C-alpha cells in the first residue's frame, strides 16, 4: 500500500502529459498559452455575470444599459432603496423557509432511511417505491391541485396559505434525500449495531449516537442538495402566498424588477442578497456537492 501511495504522490508531484485526456503540457509553450486563454474565456462566460451582480449592486445609477465588470462610483444607495421595498422581510421569509424546510427534510429523510436501511419489515419495497414516486411529483407538476390542498388541508381542515408552513411542509418529503441516506446507511456495518444492542441501547439513541455519526458524509450531501432544492422553489412560494408579503426573496425579485421607480441596481442588490446564502453553503459543502453529483452519475 505504501508503495502505491508513494507512486501516486510521485506522479502528482511531476505532472506529465498523460495526466489529462487532452494531454495538456505543463511546460511553458503554445499549448499552455492556449489553455490559459481558454480558461479566461470559460471564467468570463460562467463567472462574469456574478461579478456584474456585485458591481451593479454597489454602483450608483446602475442601469441595464451600463453594466460593467468594474465598479464605478461605489454606494450603498441600492441597498437602502431595496430595504425600503422590504427585501429584508422577504429575505427573512426565505431564511425561515430554507432553515425550517431543510431541518424538516433532513430529519424526515434520516428517520425514514433508518427504517428502510436497517430494518427488515413487510412493505419495505412499497414504501421505497412511494418515496421514489415523490421525486416524480415536483411542486411544479402538482401546483394547481396543491394550491387547492394548501388552502384546505383534507381531514385536518387547516389553511396553510399565507404561513411559512405552506412552503416548509411540502418540501419535507423528498425522495432524493431518502434514497441517498438509505443507500449510505446500508453501508454501516451491522456488527456495530449488534454490539450496541447488547448494551441495551434503544432505537432512537442507536440512530442518533451510533448510526448518524457514521453518516456524516451523506448528511452533507442531503444538506446541500436539500438547500439548493428549497432555495430554488419558485412556484411553491407563489401558490402558498396570500399576498406578495409572503413571498420569498427569489420570488420578490420580480416585484423589484416590475417596480418602475427603482433601477436595475436595486434588482441586482436583491439578487446579491439572495445569492449570498447560496455562496456560503456552496463554499462550506462543495465537497459534498461534488460527491453527490458523481455518486448519482455512477449509480444511474
Amino acid at each position, binding site marked *: 500500500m505504501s508503495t502505491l501511495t508513494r507512486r501516486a504522490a510521485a506522479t*502528482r508531484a511531476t*505532472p506529465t502529459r498523460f*495526466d489529462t*485526456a487532452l*494531454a*495538456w503540457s505543463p511546460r511553458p509553450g503554445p499549448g499552455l498559452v492556449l*489553455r490559459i486563454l481558454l480558461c479566461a474565456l*470559460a*471564467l468570463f462566460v*460562467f463567472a462574469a*455575470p456574478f461579478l*456584474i*451582480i456585485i458591481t451593479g449592486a454597489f454602483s450608483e445609477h446602475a442601469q*441595464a444599459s451600463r*453594466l460593467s465588470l468594474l465598479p464605478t462610483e461605489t454606494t450603498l444607495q441600492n441597498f437602502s432603496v431595496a430595504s425600503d421595498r422590504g427585501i429584508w422581510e422577504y429575505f427573512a421569509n426565505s431564511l425561515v423557509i430554507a432553515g425550517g424546510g431543510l431541518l424538516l427534510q433532513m430529519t424526515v*429523510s434520516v*428517520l*425514514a432511511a*433508518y427504517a428502510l436501511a436497517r430494518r427488515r419489515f413487510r412493505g*419495505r419495497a412499497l414504501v421505497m417505491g*412511494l*418515496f421514489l414516486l*415523490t421525486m*416524480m*411529483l415536483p411542486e411544479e*407538476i*402538482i*401546483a*394547481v*391541485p*396543491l*394550491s387547492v*390542498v394548501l388552502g384546505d388541508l383534507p381531514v385536518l381542515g387547516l389553511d396553510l396559505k399565507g404561513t411559512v408552513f405552506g412552503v416548509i*411542509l*411540502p418540501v*419535507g*418529503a423528498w425522495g432524493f434525500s*431518502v434514497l441517498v441516506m438509505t443507500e449510505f446507511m446500508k453501508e454501516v456495518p451491522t456488527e456495530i449495531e449488534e454490539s450496541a444492542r447488547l448494551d441495551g441501547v434503544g*432505537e432512537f439513541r442507536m440512530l442518533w449516537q451510533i448510526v448518524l455519526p457514521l453518516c456524516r458524509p451523506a448528511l452533507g450531501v442531503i444538506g446541500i442538495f436539500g438547500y439548493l432544492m428549497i432555495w*430554488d422553489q*419558485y*412556484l411553491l412560494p407563489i*401558490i402558498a402566498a396570500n399576498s406578495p408579503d409572503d413571498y420569498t426573496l*427569489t*420570488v420578490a*425579485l*420580480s416585484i423589484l424588477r416590475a417596480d418602475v421607480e427603482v433601477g436595475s441596481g436595486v*434588482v*441586482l442588490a436583491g*439578487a446579491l442578497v*439572495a*445569492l449570498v446564502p447560496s455562496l456560503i453553503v*456552496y463554499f462550506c459543502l462543495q465537497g459534498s*456537492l461534488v460527491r453527490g*453529483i*458523481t455518486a*448519482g*452519475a*455512477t449509480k*444511474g
Partner: protein
Amino acid sequence: MTAPAAARPPAKPAPPSRAARRRRWGRAWTPWLFLAPGLLLALFFKFIPMIEGIRLSLHEVQPFLGDQWVGLDNYEQVLNDDRFQEAFGHTLLLGLGQTAGAIVVGFLLALLLEGQARTLWLIRTAVFLPVVTALAVVGEIWRLLYLPTGDGFVNSVLGFLGFGPQPFLDSPDTALWSVMAVGVWIGAPYNMVIILAGLAGVQRSLYEAAAVDGVSLWQRLRYITLPALRPALTIVLTLAAIRGLRIFTEVYVLTGGGPAGSTEVWMTRVFSLGFERNDIGVASAGSMLLLAVTLVLTVTVRLLSRERKS
C-alpha cells in the same frame, strides 16, 4: 459474486421466549414509527394533491357553483388547444437542445479544466457557480444581460467581436434560443463535474500506451476517453432530458412565455390557465398529462438501463 452468499448458511433461530416475542412485536412497528413523518408529509403534499389533480382534471371546476363531472373533456381541450401544441413543441426543443448543449459544453469544460493544479480547482469552483445559484436569480441576471439595445452587456460583447446587436428575449425569432442558451449555461458546469469524475477513472496507462502507438489526439479522445464516459453519461442525460420537460422557473422569469407565445412551454401554459385564468380543470388535465408522460418515460429508462446492466 454468489460464492460468499452460498458460503454463509442462514443461522437457525432459537425458539423465541415470551419476552423475546414481545420485543419482536415491538420491533415490528418501530420501522413504521420512523417512516410515519415522511409518509404523512408525502401523503398530504404529494399523493393527495396528485389524486386531487386527477379528480379536478375530470371536472369543470366552478367556484361557488360546485364541480361538474365532464369526463375526458378537459383532456380533449388540452390536446386540441393550439397553444398547448405549440408549447409542447417548444418544451421538446428546449429539453433536447439544453441537454445536448449542456453535454457538449460540459465536455469541453471538463477537457479544459481537468487536472490537479490549485488554479484549475479555483477555476472549476468559479465556473460551477451557475449551478448553485437559484434559478430565479439566474433569470433576473440574464434578463438584464440580454438587454436588446446595443449597450446591453451581451450585445456590447458581441459588438466588440464585430456582431450587430441582437434582440434576444424581445423577438419571437430569437427568444427561445436565448432561453436555451441560459439553460446550457446552468447545465454545462453540472455535467462538467460528472465528466471530470469519469475522466479521473480513465486508466493513465491507456494514454501512455496510446502515445507509444502514436495515435492522434482525436483518436485518443474518440477511442479511449469517450467510451470510458459513455456508461455514466447516457442515463444521466436521458433523465435530464425527461426532467427538462417540466421546465418552468427559468422560462417564467426570463420571458413569461412571450413574446407572442414564442417561448411558451407546457408548464407556463398550465400556470397561466390555472392561476391567471382560473381554469382549474383544464390546467389540472395539462399537469396530469405531463405527469403521465414523465412517469412513463422515467420508468422505461430505468428498466432499460437495469436490463442492460444485468
